[in-house]
């Protein structure tokens, strides 16, 4: 079952009144959506507000979603409209809107170089700590675990593609990726506990 089908299952549960299923989608797409909206809105707090508003609007409109497109495509359309409405209300113009930014760009939006620095000094420090922990732990992992999770998370390969690349069974790939995530997650817990008192 692919990623889109998983999203569809969560959406269908939410459509049947399961709010927790929708919350899993919020966790999954919140940062990706926020990065997209940061193309329009400079202020970090406003990006968070519009991101929240987008998810609430999406939830209210959930009955109109029939799965004709992927959930994230539908969500991004709502997000872009929310950002534009926000800017109109604030009587501002986003500098990037003159570049012809559209839905298709949003779906393919992966360029970190286009991101603005949204973080406040505190959150920026926390971001650095999280990133440092993740990358340091990644480099300390055994090579096969590091390769597996890198191919998955950064290159976006499927388990089968990774299995072909690493010349091992798919089940082994699945196990390696899980072990890598667990190792990084363990290291992150301490950092996140400290951060909870500040901004989390």
């Amino acid at each position: 079952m692919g990623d889109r089908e998983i999203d569809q299952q969560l959406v269908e549960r939410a459509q049947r009144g399961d709010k927790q299923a929708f919350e899993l989608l919020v966790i999954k797409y919140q940062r990706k959506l926020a990065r997209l909206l940061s193309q329009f809105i400079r202020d970090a707090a406003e990006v968070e507000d519009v991101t929240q508003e987008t998810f609430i609007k999406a939830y209210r409109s959930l009955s109109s979603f029939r799965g004709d497109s992927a959930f994230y495509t539908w969500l991004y359309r709502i997000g872009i409209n929310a950002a534009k409405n926000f800017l109109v209300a604030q009587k501002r113009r986003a500098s990037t809107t003159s570049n012809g930014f559209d839905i298709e760009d949003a779906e393919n939006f992966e360029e970190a170089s286009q991101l603005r620095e949204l973080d406040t000094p505190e959150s920026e420090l926390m971001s650095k700590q999280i990133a440092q922990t993740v990358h340091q732990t990644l480099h300390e992992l055994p090579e096969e675990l590091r390769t597996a999770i890198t191919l998955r998370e950064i290159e976006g390969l499927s388990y089968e593609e990774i299995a072909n690349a690493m010349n091992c069974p798919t089940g082994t790939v699945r196990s390696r990726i899980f072990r890598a995530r667990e190792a990084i997650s363990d290291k992150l817990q301490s950092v996140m506990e400290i951060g909870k008192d500040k901004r989390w």
Partner: protein
Amino acid sequence: MKNKISALMDGELDSTDVADTITQVKKTEELRNEWSTYHLIGDTLRHPAMSTLDISPDVRKKLAIEPTVLTPEFPKEKKGKAFAFAVAASMVTAVAAVTWMGGQTMDQPFDRVTDTAALQTAVKTESAEPAVPVLAQKEEFKTDKSVLQAAAQEDSDVIPISAPIQLNPAPIQLNDYMFAHEEFSPRTAIRGVSPYMRTVADPY
């Protein structure tokens, strides 16, 4: 279970385990945290910026006061059934149309051949006169089969093949005339291509 969460977020979990895993993630706070942390790891590896962003608690609070969405289910099976029914109906209609058109076209040659066979049977004792069956094949008028068949069972000397013989003087010209005016014959309900269609078995 954490292993399944890892596979679930990659879209690589077996479909039989998906529903149960989602239910467990929703129920258990620890598993929900794993879901969140695994996504944080992925997001951080791809884009280190904004890794501190977590609006899910705020969204959860806002969702709590939102009216619950209850969407009527859109049965996908009905779409398939409707499509299958439409295809079946189209095929039945097409077959019916072809059958009808074929009947229109084949009607005339079929009768003629049958009549010819009957005539040949009827005159089999008159083999000394080969002109009779030939003329019978060329005649354009419908002949009553039952009459001919009944006649065939009677004495061959008395078989009334005289009627086709009367067409002897100008059969080809008559055929041309009939062919030219067949379109206006009341025999076919629809004027058009059908009268002009000829099959392989048709001698003309």
